[in-house]
């Protein structure tokens, strides 16, 4: 792909703006709370878009396009059942506890609700996950720009790292959030023309449907039988694994996204954040997945001028997005598209780094290393942690070069950690009898169950390192869904059992932290802005989309 001068100019303009936003954001940083939590001051429309953008990394943008080409419209399940229902749940039911507890982070909520060891376990695993995730994002960016543009791996990694470091060091979470909104706009506007142009070229949805097998253009019709659909998953695995455990485990407990809602300027705003974000989330499949489906349809049409590149005996699905851009984007728009790709990498990186430095500063440093220091000290620690976090991410990016399956490993780690965590939160927020011992041992048991499931089963040649295999899944996706189901179930069972055998906290200690001992907030806003009705509106729209693409 050859870039013109105007394409580089657009990229430079973008860098100028993100640094400028960071520069202006620094003026409001007076305390560690300003730097690490935005002082709970951000308006709803900004927190909503940031909630979405923090998750919208380039691996998702490229990965979803690739999955669209491989699995068709079923890929939309990652949004329509794999995100939106959980976003409704966290806004309506969980945010009163997160925001109302005045916890500065998810691990801190666990400390308030349960005990220190549960907080420590979550803080350490989360901190490690965010650094790895940020590093993998840098690695993916470096590899992509090396392959597509011929830039050196080091140049791409260092350039993006320095830009993210600059604006997060200067303006902290506020700068990251504000830039995520800009990045969101850029990602949508940068890739929507591609979706439109490729779909029109493929003959619209009717033309696409006429050229592809039916199981690629229906989201539910073939989901009942793993042998009938391209994902190789059956209904229960899809709904329970993806739609419940993995989805809720991520959107309801991952501090990366929850932090954006907790930065809102009021309880009502925090609750509305994921609900408002759900609307654009529902539309995202048409931006990121549809181009991949169109790419596959164009490949099937002789003489269309486009074909997915080959990788061995199959298609190189990961190349779908960039090859489409090369075929449909002229100079100018090509620069916008590449800038949008860079923006998606950077929003993911910055999101992970800001979540890391909040958790490290408050939940690890302040809790275990130096308590009761003046606030200026923690502000300095927050800033230095940003530097260290970026440095560790760069190091991870280089380590990732040595392994060809590190992304698979990261996905597994998320499944091992997030799936049981959701069980812990469900019990913690809705069952006052749950104890710290139950939460801690439940989390460990759940992660162990995930590890055992992976080690005793096989899918596409992966897993089965504990012998056996006892079971062979038709796809790694099905395996991941079932790993999550087992992890959640074991965590729930162990947590309940241990809780019943150990003493709970007194009711006075749990006020504001658990259902039944918390006054649910009354929202004076008009009915259509209140969380409950808003959630119902989202659900109705979601149902409509699912029926439309049944």
């Amino acid at each position, binding site marked *: 792909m050859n870039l013109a001068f105007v394409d580089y100019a657009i990229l430079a303009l973008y860098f100028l703006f993100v640094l400028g936003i960071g520069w202006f954001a620094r003026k409001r940083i007076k305390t560690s709370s300003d730097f690490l939590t935005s002082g709970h001051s951000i308006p709803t429309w900004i927190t909503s878009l940031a909630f979405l953008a923090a998750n919208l990394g380039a691996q998702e943008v490229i990965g979803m396009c690739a999955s669209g080409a491989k699995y068709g419209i079923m890929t939309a399940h990652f949004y329509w059942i794999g995100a939106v229902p959980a976003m409704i749940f966290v806004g309506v039911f969980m945010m009163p506890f997160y925001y109302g507890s005045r916890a500065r982070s998810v691990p801190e909520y666990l400390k308030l609700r349960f005990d220190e060891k549960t907080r420590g376990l979550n803080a350490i695993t989360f901190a490690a996950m965010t650094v790895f995730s940020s590093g993998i994002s840098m690695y993916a960016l470096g590899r992509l720009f090396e392959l597509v543009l011929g830039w050196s791996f080091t140049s791409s990694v260092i350039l993006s790292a320095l830009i993210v470091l600059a604006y997060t060091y200067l303006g902290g979470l506020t700068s990251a959030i504000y830039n995520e909104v800009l990045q969101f706009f850029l990602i949508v506007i940068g890739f929507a023309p591609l979706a439109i*142009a490729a779909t029109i070229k493929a003959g619209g949805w009717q033309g696409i449907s006429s050229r592809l097998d039916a199981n690629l253009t229906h989201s539910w019709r073939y989901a009942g039988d793993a042998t009938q659909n391209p994902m190789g998953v059956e209904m229960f695995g899809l709904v329970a694994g993806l739609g419940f455990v993995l989805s809720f485990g991520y959107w309801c407990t991952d501090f990366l996204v929850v932090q954006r809602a907790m930065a809102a300027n009021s309880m009502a705003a925090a609750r509305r954040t994921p609900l408002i974000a759900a609307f654009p989330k529902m539309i995202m499949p048409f931006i990121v997945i549809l181009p991949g489906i169109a790419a596959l349809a164009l490949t099937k049409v002789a003489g269309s001028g486009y074909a997915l590149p080959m990788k061995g005996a199959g298609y190189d699905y990961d190349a779908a997005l960039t090859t489409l851009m090369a075929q449909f984007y002229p100079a100018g728009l090509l620069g916008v598209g590449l800038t949008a790709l860079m923006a998606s990498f950077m929003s993911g990186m910055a999101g992970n780094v800001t979540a890391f430095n909040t958790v490290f500063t408050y939940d690890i440093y302040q809790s275990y290393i130096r308590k009761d220091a003046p606030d200026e000290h923690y502000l300095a620690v927050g800033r230095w942690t940003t530097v260290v976090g970026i440095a560790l991410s760069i190091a991870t990016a280089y380590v990732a070069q040595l392994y060809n399956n590190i992304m698979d490993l990261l996905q597994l780690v998320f499944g091992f950690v997030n799936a049981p965590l959701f069980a812990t939160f469900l019990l913690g927020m809705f069952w006052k009898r749950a104890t710290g011992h139950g939460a801690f041992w439940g989390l460990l048991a759940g992660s162990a169950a995930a590890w055992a499931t992976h080690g005793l089963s096989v899918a596409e040649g992966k897993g089965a390192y504990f012998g056996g295999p006892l079971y062979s899944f038709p796809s790694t996706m099905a395996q991941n869904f079932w790993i999550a189901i087992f992890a959640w179930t074991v965590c729930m069972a162990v947590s309940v059992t241990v809780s019943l055998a150990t003493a709970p906290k007194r009711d006075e200690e749990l006020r504001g932290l658990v259902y039944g001992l918390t006054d649910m907030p009354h929202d004076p806003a008009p009915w259509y802005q209140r969380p409950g009705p808003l959630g119902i509106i989202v659900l109705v729209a979601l149902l409509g989309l699912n029926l439309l693409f049944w």
Partner: protein
Amino acid sequence: MHDLRNPSGLFFVLLGLILTAMSFTGATAPLLEMNLNLYTGLFMLAFGGTLLWLAKRAS
């Protein structure tokens, strides 16, 4: 903090101007059958302008 709609609006107005200008240079792509620079540029101008107008109204 300054209203985010200002820098965002300005960014997209500038991008819109660049793409609209590029649309007159004949820049194209192998499979492109429409003037995508023009349509996207005009959209960005409208979007950026709307953000700036909303920010001005709020202030």
